[in-house]
């Protein structure tokens, strides 16, 4: 699998990306309402409070839905591959890839985190089926 797109981080998302260097998936948690959110923001998307802390999360989730991409969206991507909406145990949904063949994937399947390092030392969180 190739990952040619290097995301441009900002002051809000820097702790997320810093975590990926240590293979830690960190999400924002609202101090006021205790809910997690993803992607990171300057405020809580549940209650609007601005007091947010970063917490390491479990890396457990289930596949909400998925699709096998058969054509590359940009130069450098090598189709086919599977992208998915993964519903994390802590609540938020994140976009990711499922690192198996399409015959082994289904909606509502439990998955667990694995890391894919980028050329600059950061990493992307991918998922694989539990026990797979």
């Amino acid at each position, binding site marked *: 699998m190739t990952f040619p797109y290097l995301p441009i981080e900002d002051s809000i998302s820097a702790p997320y990306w810093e975590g990926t260097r240590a293979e830690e998936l960190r999400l924002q948690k609202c101090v006021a309402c205790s809910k997690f959110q993803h992607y990171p923001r300057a405020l809580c998307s549940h209650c609007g409070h601005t007091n947010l802390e970063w917490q390491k999360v479990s890396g457990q989730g289930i596949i909400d839905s998925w*699709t096998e*991409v*058969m054509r590359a*969206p940009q130069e450098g991507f090598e189709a086919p591959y599977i992208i998915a*909406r993964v519903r994390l145990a802590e609540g938020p949904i994140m*976009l990711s*890839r499922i690192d198996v063949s399409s015959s082994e994937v289904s*909606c509502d399947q439990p998955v667990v985190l694995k890391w894919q390092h980028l050329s600059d030392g950061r990493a992307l969180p991918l998922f694989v089926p539990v026990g797979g």
Partner: protein
Amino acid sequence: MQGVLPEVFIVGAAECDLGVTNKSILELQGQAVTRALADAGLSTRDVDGIATNGISRFSATQLADYLGIVPSFTDSSFAGGSSFEIYVARAVEALRSGQCTTVVISFASNQRSAKSRSLGGVIEHHTPEAQFETPFGPLFPLSYYAMAAQRYLHEVPHGRAALSEVAISAREWALLNPAAFRYGTKSLTPADIERADLISSPLTNADCCLVTDGGGAIVLTTKVVDKKRAVKVIGYGEATTNTSMTSVDDLMVTGAVESGKRAFAMAGITPQDIDVVEVYDSFTITVLLTLEALGFAPRGGAAELMLSGKTRPGGSFPLNTSGGGLSYCHPGQYGILLLIEAVRQLRGECGERQVPHAKRALAHGTGGIFSTHATVILEKAS
């Protein structure tokens, strides 16, 4: 609507050239606007309101300059394919408040001639989506609709057959519409759709809308000269839900639930009172989820509705009677063409594909990745 407020009518509607035009965006806009005004018996001198997008950064300003007019109302809101249904709401408010007297809503694209469309979409590097979604390589917008479809197939029996029927039914209507890109071709079978190239599973090439040039315009005013051809705006509603592929909790429930509720409440009618339904069909799944959201079927029930065959020509639930974005025309933002077809059906101008005795029509636009939803309900003025 409220009795004290003036009623607003669509008095003109027309397409620009469609298909492969090799014309500029502004030439096509010029065609759309002048043809819609001619249809209304008006000229550019009568226009003091413009709503459009997709021309340049200053789209309405650009069009005003091109037409040689100085409008007192403009709107260039960018909400993808539903922008034009949203503009109807803005235009009604502006006309009622007296900010302007005659609004033209228009759109044109030369995307097929100009080869300006890419599978990955436009990446805006500063957005959260570029940081947290683009690295994984989704097609945009296709992969989001594909994930919605995958979920639909997971939850609903005969889902794949229902997706195919959306395309099959649209083709049957297009075969009756001389302006349709697929006019003069042939009927589709489930195998034609399911055996076409997979692009982002489960959606194949044949589950995806056309990529064509095209567009059109409508003219709105409170002053009606020819009541026989006028169409009244009796309801509208909108809902804006997401830019991220991960913000919406349940892929089976779109913002059309709220936009539809608001539009029906304003019109004081129910889905059973609609004679012609024109909903956005960027992809086959768009239609199933929109019909359910608008209340034409319960969750998962659009599959049964499609498979009943009622949506085809001659059926009791006439749907996407132009042939839709799937078989008629899809210029990137299809919303203006939904309104034009709804107006023509209510006027009784649709020839072979005319729905008999159509009194009320619904047009529903969907923009982005099920991001923006706008419903407009229209009624014959006389």
